């Protein structure tokens, strides 16, 4: 049976996030040729509607209101439910981002529905779709199906291939008006900490440092390499506990779980908790002075050496490569 699916398009700094295009691809899979409707929420977002359509949405519904400038669960909850009540979908897809994680359980509770969070793969299509998601921070995976109610799930960034952008595709972008009121939380201030806006959960390349970076300044060469590769920096718990960096950079069983295309571990020994957070990365490079370090057991390529020698050499080598390319 074909399903109508609504997909939340997530906007950050005025642009759609990649995970939203991945969510549309996932929606197509479960829709069984049903309609895929993009949803945009914010103070001024409807101009982004065509882009969602170019990535596969059939049409887009936007909710705009001055109170939706910043995300709050109350504001976005009201806006999303206004679209939901108009569209009455059979399936819902969000990205598994800070926003998606915060909002999806609220909507699921309102709908008295199940919710499959953090999906990395969908097997089968339409009604037969089953969802694969990591448990124990990626130490294991479970396969689940939805027994009852709407098919509601969130997709982990970087795992489901988006459809190719089709600039020739167009569709209808409409608006729904909603009275956004009685917000019980108000965002007073936002301090941006992330380096250059590349978010770790969506980064294709992560350069992570451990105790081996020896101090906050030890992250500088790592940051330079990450910038060169258009990636983000991360850290092990050891580096965070030693105050070399902020806890928001921590990768592992406590901390973030990441699956970039390339993970470069510099001066990280590879405790089991850290491996849980990164060992499903596509390609892993380990740089460590200790040839016995655990990290080499999961690395595709390893260099036994001092990161303060190896990383600058890599930077030079990659710069050369870029010049010659």
């Amino acid at each position: 049976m074909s399903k109508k699916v609504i997909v939340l398009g997530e906007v950050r700094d005025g642009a759609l996030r990649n995970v939203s295009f991945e969510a549309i691809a996932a929606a197509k899979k479960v829709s069984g040729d049903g309609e895929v409707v993009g949803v945009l929420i914010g103070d001024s977002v409807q101009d982004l509607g065509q882009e969602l359509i170019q990535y596969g949405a059939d049409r887009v519904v936007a909710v705009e209101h001055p109170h939706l400038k910043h995300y709050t669960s109350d504001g976005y909850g009201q806006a999303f439910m206004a679209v939901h009540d108009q569209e009455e979908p059979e399936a819902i897809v969000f990205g598994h981002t800070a926003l998606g994680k915060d909002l999806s359980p609220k909507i699921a509770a309102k709908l008295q529905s199940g919710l499959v969070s953090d999906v990395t793969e969908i097997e089968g299509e339409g009604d037969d779709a089953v969802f694969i998601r990591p448990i124990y921070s990626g130490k294991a995976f479970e396969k689940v199906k939805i027994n009852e109610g709407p098919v509601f799930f969130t997709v982990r960034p970087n795992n489901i291939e988006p459809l190719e952008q089709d600039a020739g595709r167009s569709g209808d972008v409409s608006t729904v008006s909603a009275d956004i009121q009685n917000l019980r939380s108000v965002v007073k201030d936002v301090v941006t900490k992330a380096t250059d806006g590349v978010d770790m959960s969506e980064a294709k390349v992560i350069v992570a440092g451990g105790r081996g970076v020896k101090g906050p300044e030890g992250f500088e060469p790592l940051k330079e390499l990450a910038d060169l590769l258009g990636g983000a920096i991360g850290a092990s718990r050891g580096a965070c506990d030693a105050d070399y960096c902020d806890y928001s950079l921590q990768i592992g069983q406590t901390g973030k779980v990441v699956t970039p295309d390339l993970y470069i571990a510099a001066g990280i020994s590879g405790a089991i908790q850290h491996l849980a957070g990164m060992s499903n990365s596509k390609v892993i490079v380990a740089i460590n002075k200790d040839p016995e370090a655990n990290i080499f057991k999961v690395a595709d390529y390893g260099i036994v050496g001092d990161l303060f020698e190896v990383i600058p050499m890599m930077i030079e080598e990659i710069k050369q490569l870029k010049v010659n390319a």
Partner: protein
Amino acid sequence: MNIYALVKRTFDTEERISVQNGEIAEDGAEFIINPYDEYAVEEAIRVRDEHGGEVTVLTIGSEEAEKQLRTALAMGADKAVLINTEDDLDELDEFGAATIIAEFLKDKDADLILAGNVAIDGGSGQVGPRVAELLGINYVTTITELKIDGDKATVIRDVEGDSETIEAQMPLLITAQQGLNDPRYPSLPGIMKAKKKPLDELELDDIDLEEDDVEVKVERVDVFLPPEKQAGRVLEGDLQDQVKELVQLLRTEAKVI
């Protein structure tokens, strides 16, 4: 202030995971309070110490979860409640867990409910916000700072590395992010006292729920381990040559740069 902390008994982070007969094997595993819930318990105790009131820790599970509740009592919580579903339920999803917790809490007039932002086993992070929504109260997730002043709380929320300062109306449910505090270790006197603190054990009946009310919406059909990662190549030779080779391999073989 009437404070509740929601905790879950989970595998120790040190544990390797193995699968037997389509289930995660628990034999011989060490169990702990989910690390994020430990931040919630610590923060609950700190709020009580500053503003007065009482901290109740609440969990769903089997009798074995009593150990984690006693640990939370030893840290300084005042009371504990175990909702024992061992005889009633084979499976429980987030919908069911939140339903049970909300049913229990609905007439408790909680001012503040604290939970971890995610459990390190299931990893969905749904139960906290679901409970708040079912109770009709406000919530903020992944917080790294909490200050309470009358009927308002000022919290700092971690949003993928950015920090949002949020003014939130009470009653409030928050979920704890790493960095919120440093959970204390239970002291010896704390452990002694914990043995005498009240620990109530309830079943679904006691909170007027039937098994059908919490039947799973999402069902696990399989569980498996990721393919074992094969150790790759450790490069050899002069360091400069190794780096050259590495960059070439990343370019041509792995095709990631």
